[in-house]
């Protein structure tokens, strides 16, 4: 343990920094227009020191854990702190230059005191649309990043408090909903400004020389505690392999994720992805910032949650990414659909450790979230002037785009059955309310239920998947269907059974049934239904050891032995 500056003031400053990022995050989420930001908390805020290390991070969606680190690094490479001025705002989103995927736009603002950058505020938010071949900018059929939208390298959006109007107009010109995007950028700007103001006040009170010393100390302490926790885990190298269904283009090709987690017993951890599939044609590739987010999540999950999260926690981590692989693609490979990959990487990391610590970590969860993006037009108002104009082609009705997120079951653990239909690991999104869906789109949710017999059997049962059934009231409706675990089950642990596979099918109005191959663009007409069954989590321990009480409860609840499929 290093001799300490002031162990009390350190804690006071930590609370202050965490309060500043929470205020920033709150301001961003509440002020934003994007439903992805609001409902899925797909946004994050961080404070950085002048070297570009995270000193405080908002409690947000873990997929953002590492994302801003690389964006800030990229901005600093282009605009060194010595070139930054008070009132500057920097922007970027290019995944190949440190971003995550194009809809995530990062804004970074320096705090300049007496001519020196002393800290930075940074935020990232998932924008509704950044152009490209499909509304929403997450096209499942993209085969190069140019299909995915507007790429912004590190650029200066504002100089000394004045927005670069040319740059803003260029961005607006390239997106489908320029006002919404600008509204969300404004929310990010407002959040960043709040953080800088609060930081400046803190600096006035405690003095910057002392504060920067305390920042460094906070990082060192989180590092030390993380190393302690890592050193307490059994040393060795642990392998884990799991498979993603396909990339949405080559439907029959499974994608392999392999990770070797090495704990050296001295507090270091290495993640080596040798053995993972080469990069794919479809948009499932993941850039290094995303892999790091998953690795950082893994470190937080296997160490002590009481350790304050900052850049120090990630100093003991090394990540090895084979070139031209799924986890380290070359441009211009498409990357927009990286979320399932990130989730699975996190699940593989925990899974690798569960092999040696089965009493502490659970069986595999579904570790996937089915994303359904519905798009189409409302019927035109009957009797409106537009509808009755003779001769002219009918003008389009009001457009709608809504996204639903459906979770699978979580893995069982020693002493605990899994949970049915729950967000796990890197994401924490909420499903759509039936009453909101039907209000925003001519689609009716007919069913929202627990899927019996889908949790892996075991002494402790895996969480069940869910069933949802949608009826199209007015067609055509296009549906981007991004599933997982249609072909590879969530494995059980310590003798427990695997979770059930996912299935999705279209029930046409004329009675035909079509199976959805995990990913694809579907088109449904009025009267057609889409029925989805999400995957279950793995079970824990031999099923023969399940208690009579628990088995009776399974039958009573109908979660076991009642399935129709």
């Amino acid at each position, binding site marked *: *343990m290093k001799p*300490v500056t002031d*162990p*009390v003031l350190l*804690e*006071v400053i930590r609370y*202050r920094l*965490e*309060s500043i990022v929470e*205020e920033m995050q*709150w*301001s961003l989420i*509440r002020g934003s*227009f994007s*439903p992805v930001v*609001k409902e899925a908390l797909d946004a994050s805020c961080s404070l950085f020191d002048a070297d570009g290390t995270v000193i405080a991070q908002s409690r947000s969606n873990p997929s953002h854990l590492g994302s801003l680190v690389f964006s800030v690094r990229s901005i600093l490479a282009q605009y060194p702190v010595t070139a930054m001025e008070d009132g500057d705002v920097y922007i970027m989103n290019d995944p190949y230059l440190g971003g995550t995927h194009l809809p995530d736009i990062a804004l970074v603002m320096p705090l300049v005191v007496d001519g020196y950058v002393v800290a930075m505020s940074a935020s990232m938010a998932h924008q509704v649309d950044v152009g490209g071949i499909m509304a929403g900018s997450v096209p499942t059929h993209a085969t190069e990043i140019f299909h995915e939208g507007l790429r912004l390298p590190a650029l200066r959006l504002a100089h000394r408090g004045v927005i670069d109007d040319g740059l803003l107009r260029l961005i607006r010109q390239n997106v489908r909903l320029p006002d919404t995007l600008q*509204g969300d950028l*404004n929310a990010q700007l*407002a959040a960043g400004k*709040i953080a800088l103001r609060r930081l400046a006040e803190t600096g006035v009170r405690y003095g910057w020389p002392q504060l920067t010393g305390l920042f460094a100390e906070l990082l*060192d*302490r*989180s590092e*030390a*505690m993380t190393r302690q*926790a890592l050193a307490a885990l059994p040393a060795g190298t642990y392998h884990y392999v799991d498979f993603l269904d396909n990339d949405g283009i080559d439907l029959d090709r499974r994608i392999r994720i392999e990770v070797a987690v090495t704990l050296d017993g001295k507090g270091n951890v290495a993640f080596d992805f040798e053995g993972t599939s080469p990069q794919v044609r479809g948009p499932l590739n993941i850039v290094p910032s995303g892999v790091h987010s998953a690795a950082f999540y893994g470190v*937080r*999950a296997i160490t*002590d*949650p*009481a*350790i304050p999260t900052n850049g120090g926690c990630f100093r003991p981590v090394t990540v090895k990414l084979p070139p031209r692989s799924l986890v380290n693609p070359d441009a211009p490979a498409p990357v927009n659909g990286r979320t399932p990959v990130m989730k699975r990487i996190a699940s593989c990391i*925990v899974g690798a450790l569960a092999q040696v610590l089965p009493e502490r*970590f*659970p069986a595999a969860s579904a570790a996937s979230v089915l994303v359904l993006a519905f798009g189409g037009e409302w019927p035109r108002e009957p009797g409106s002037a537009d509808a009755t104009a003779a001769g002219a082609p009918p003008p389009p009705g009001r457009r709608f785009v809504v996204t639903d997120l459906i*979770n699978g079951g979580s893995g069982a*653990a020693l002493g*605990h059955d*899994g*949970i*049915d*239909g*729950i967000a796990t690991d890197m994401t*924490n999104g*909420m499903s759509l*309310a*039936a*009453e*909101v869906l039907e*209000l925003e789109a001519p689609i*009716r*949710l*007919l069913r*929202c*239920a*627990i899927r019996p017999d889908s949790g892996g059997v075991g002494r402790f049962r895996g969480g069940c998947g869910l069933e949802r059934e949608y009826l199209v009231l007015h067609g055509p409706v296009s549906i981007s269907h991004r599933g997982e675990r249609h072909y590879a089950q969530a494995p059980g642990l310590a003798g427990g059974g695997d979770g059930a596979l996912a299935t999705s099918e279209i029930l046409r109005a004329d009675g035909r049934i079509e199976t959805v191959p995990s990913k694809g663009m579907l088109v449904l007409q009025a009267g057609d239904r889409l029925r989805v069954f999400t995957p279950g989590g793995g079970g824990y321990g031999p099923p023969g050891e399940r208690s009579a009480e628990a088995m009776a409860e399974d039958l*009573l*609840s*109908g*979660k076991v032995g009642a399935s129709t499929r």
Partner: protein
Amino acid sequence: MSAGAGQAIVGIDIGGTFTDLVCVLPDGTLKLAKLRSTPSNPARAVLDAVAHLRDAWGVDPASIGRFVHGTTVATNAVIERKGARIGFIASEGFRDLLEIGRGNRREIYDTVLKPQAPVFLAPRHLRRDVPARLDAQGQVVQALDETALLAAVDELVALEVRAIAIVFLFSFLDPSQERRARELILRKHPQLAVSLSSEVDPAFREYERACVTAFDAYVKPVLDQYLSQMEQGLAEAGVPARLQIMQSRGGVSSAGVARARPVRLFLSGPAAGAIGGAMTGRAVGRRDLISVDIGGTSCDIALAADGVPLLRSEGSIEGHPVRVAMVDVNAIGAGGGSLAWLDGAGTLRVGPHSAGADPGPACYARGGTEPTVTDASLALGWLDPANFAGGTVALDVDCARAAIDARIAQPLRLDVERAALGIHRVVNAQMAEGIRLASIHRGIDPRGFSLVALGGGGGLHACALAEELDIAEVLVPRHPGVLSAIGLLAAPVEHEALVACARPIAGADPTEILARLSALDADCAAAMREEGHAQAYAHDAADAAGPRMTIRHLADVCFIGQSSYVSVPLASGDPSTMLPRLYEDFLHAHERIYGHSSREPARIVNLRSVHGIEAGFVQEAGGLPVGRSDEAGGQPGRTRRIRLPGTQAAVEARIIDRTRLAPGERFTGPALIEQIDTTTLVPIGWTGEVAPSGELILRRQAT
């Protein structure tokens, strides 16, 4: 709504261990007592209270004009899982609504997950679905299958449910299906309690609506029995006044109305505290207040703007959504019993774990070896070991010092006092940031507010918190430890009605809005009439004699595309300007809370109407010492050596007996004001004054 002349008014706040009893005698004198609680027998509590009123204070039961109660029964039923066994009936296909929730989780880094939705309310075998649903326009898509409904209910009755929650899709657009279901159920099973989602929470989003409806059903039989017993107790004791209950939103209603909608009682206790805080401010002319109620394990923060406690329209219990209006109380897990510890890197941390009641802080000398915030206060000399809680608990200074020394001071190579100051500084940083965030979430800059110190611990932390937050003034009510009970007497009688009404402001029809508001007004007025307040509607502005009804209309508004809304007052007087003005007021409120706003189209989400009758209760200055000099030198010069932040050595602090402080008296820090329910620390750089009404006003001297 004051009681008539010659009548006494009574407030009773029943906690787990103690029952706080307050009474305002016909001559305006305030009386307070702490009685032992009788958790198993609420009627007993009432009888005990009435006996105390009669025997100790000479109050004739027949002269009691109001009897107001704040209760934790609803909350405890949930925490202890002692609600009724209920059945849950949803539209076909939605049986699992209550268990699936929205799919998100609270603890992000936990790998082993726990249920996130309140499954315990109705496990799967107690849930059913039946054909019955509307579409988004309120048209019937599936007619209610009455046979299926009754078959489902028969099964649930066979499983011994006592209440049923019914949630049909879009029922808030037309409650007929749910009402018909209730009619059928009660005809066959009249003993059941039935909660309809269209009545409990007529608003969008079926999971949240299902949750609040199921909670309502879960606590309904419990509350019904509890309130009946209390009413019985009152009747037996010969009290003519009707029992009134504090609701979560800070207004009281009759027990009859309360038992029909028990889900509105979850914050009954804290609401009374928030009202008490606001009342403290009003007594000294302050209307913008932050009250901090610091107890053993938590610090409850509540804000009042313009004299009224702030509400949130979407509350929660144990993290589950309970979509009814509640006082906006933010709890932080830090209080006198919070444990201080060193983390793996040697940083001083305080909480979130607490010493609890057993063994309690080290200074209780009941075997606790880990230091707490209270131990630090004692080691610094801020607490009198012989006079803690009125002398009911003897404190052991040596045990406190030993715990701090062994666990904190020695490892950090500090002396005990520095370590104790550090413990306070860390816990204060937590509380201060909590207060800051709670304020900011409401668009409030705390610097212009006064801090009200409540609870046993508020007085020791308030000035330090004020300094941290750049607040210039701290108020300490006369009885910080029993303020909730006093707040009961100050709360208005209040009823709220709400209806979902999704309309863009630009395209809305003012006539329709007004029609919906008058339907809401009718609902509120019906509740008021039921409680016997019909006459309050009759008063016109010229008649100031009797209690007057205040009617407020609000609209929940958001920008189109946004999902969180802001409640904005709706000036329904002039239909032609009502909507344009609503839009402008919304932009203004959005700007204030979120720091930005643009002239994007906005829409209405819900309409609300709130009818209230002010209590008109003012705490009289009765019982205060009078005629002393204007310097607290009137008291003998008792002092104690204490340690304070920012000083290198112990200082002499004056010890002042609160009961002997007269209005107008002034004092200067360092000083400790001692009273039976709390100790107030006045640091160096602060001065204090006793207000005419008895509150302490502490002010930071300009530096």
